[in-house]
């Protein structure tokens, strides 16, 4: 127990012996971790948004009024066979007109006037399971316009495409910034521990003279690095969870159409990832620093 006690107390003393440097590195680690948490959350949010939008991707095929029902059903069967399609609904001319009338009944500013017969086409409404196939799928069907069955293809794949692009850019850009921050945090920890090592060089010399193993000499410093990491993680996570409520509220007001909520499971994953990165950076930086000293 005394050995463990020695290592722990040496680590704590090391931290408080130079509080300015220790707090500065804790602050840097906190910033790095905040960025990391922000990156993780944004990434998760965008993925959820893409998921929601993907499930809403629809392509409508207007059917030529002269097409036979058998031809339409054959087309429907063919579309259903495509693996990217999750569902196809056949909306007849009568159903289309009824929908329009229903809308008109509900909205007073919308008046249907002078309708002779039924000008609306029948349609196939296609729901896709994979949004990334939307463009290919739309293009294939568009090639059949004028063939006697399909009169027009209505799709809007740009939204999903753009969202996917944003996700990619954010991922790459975020990773690059994160890598830089990680490097800075590591550098600061290496320096903090170097100062701690310097402050205790007499003690280290004696430890080595009386036969302490390198591992024993190293541990207090590695723990000190992990202490800096842990403190940084605690501060960063406190900020993240304190801000989570208001920010989520604002985001939900802003994106009413996207019912994204990151539940307790994600909160746990986030906390674990942040703490994990913090400990790795702390221990890694300290190890680099002590190794350099012991190798002298």
């Amino acid at each position, binding site marked *: *127990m*005394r*050995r463990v006690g*020695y290592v722990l107390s040496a680590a704590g003393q090391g931290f408080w012996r130079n509080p300015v440097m220790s707090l500065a590195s804790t602050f840097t680690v906190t910033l790095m971790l905040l960025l990391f948490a922000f990156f993780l959350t944004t990434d998760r949010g965008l993925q959820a948004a893409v998921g929601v939008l993907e499930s809403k991707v629809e392509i409508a095929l207007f059917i030529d009024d002269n097409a036979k029902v058998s031809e339409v059903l054959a087309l429907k069967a063919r579309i259903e066979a495509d693996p990217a399609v999750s569902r196809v609904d056949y909306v007849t001319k009568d159903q289309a007109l009824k929908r329009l009338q229903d809308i008109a009944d509900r909205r007073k500013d919308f008046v249907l006037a002078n309708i002779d017969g039924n000008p609306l086409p029948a349609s196939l409404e296609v729901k896709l399971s994979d949004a990334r196939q939307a463009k290919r799928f739309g293009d294939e069907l568009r090639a059949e316009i004028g063939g006697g069955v399909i009169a027009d293809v209505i799709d809007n794949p740009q939204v999903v495409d753009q969202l996917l692009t944003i996700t990619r850019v954010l991922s790459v850009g975020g990773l690059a910034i994160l890598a830089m921050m990680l490097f800075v945090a590591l550098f600061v920890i290496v320096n903090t521990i170097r100062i701690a090592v310097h402050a205790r060089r*007499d*003690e280290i*010399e*004696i*430890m*080595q*003279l*009386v*036969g*302490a*193993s*390198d591992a*024993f*000499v190293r541990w207090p410093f590695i723990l000190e690095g992990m202490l800096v990491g842990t403190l940084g993680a605690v501060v960063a996570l406190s900020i993240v969870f304190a801000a989570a409520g208001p920010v989520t509220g604002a985001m939900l007001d802003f994106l009413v159409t996207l019912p994204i909520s990151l539940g307790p499971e994600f909160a746990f994953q986030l906390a674990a990832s942040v703490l994990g990165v913090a400990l790795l950076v702390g221990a890694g930086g300290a190890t680099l620093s002590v190794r350099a000293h012991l190798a002298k």
Partner: protein
Amino acid sequence: MIALDDVSKRYPNGTFALRDVDLRIDSGDFIFLVGASGAGKSTLIRLLIREELATTGRVVVDGEDVGRMPRSRVHRLRRKVGVVFQDFKLLPRKTVAENVAFALIVTGHEGRLVREETERALSLVGLTARRDHFPSQLSGGEQQRTALARALVNRPRILIADEPTGNLDPVTSWEIIKLLTRVNDLGTTLVMATHNAEIVNALRRRVVHLDHGMVVRDEREGLYAA
């Protein structure tokens, strides 16, 4: 116990600190290393505890080739070799007992053994009554006795003393020397580098004289000067 075969140590600037040194020290020996400053005494000591490596030749301590020993085993060598220095190297914020116990704690010992061995070492050097004092509250002789207790607490087979009386007055120096001879009588091999002619001449032990890195004299029951 200790053997140096044809050992040379050359520093990067080209100067030789040791040149073709052959030396054999048996278990239980007491030897004085004498010679002018810069003659190579401290370098020889640093080779024995592997603070430095020989440029050529072989250094064997307690059956192990020190030069070929992997770094991961060096700490085991150091536990077999106690060292005291002219400047004591005590930790100022620890008490006498804590300074001594430190050597046990950092080598992985715990609990009752630490307490018992610390008390044993303190009583050996006669510092039991001073156990809770800090180094700054001690005389030079008491500080050196603390350092000696720390060097002995791991029960090393070899004790190396690099000018242990260099900072002490003659009376205090004799106290330390009496302690060292007692430690030697108890079976510990003793290597002591010194400039103190009076002590060397009074004790009449083996004397190894270094000059410009070479052994120029090796006498049983020798004197400080030839």
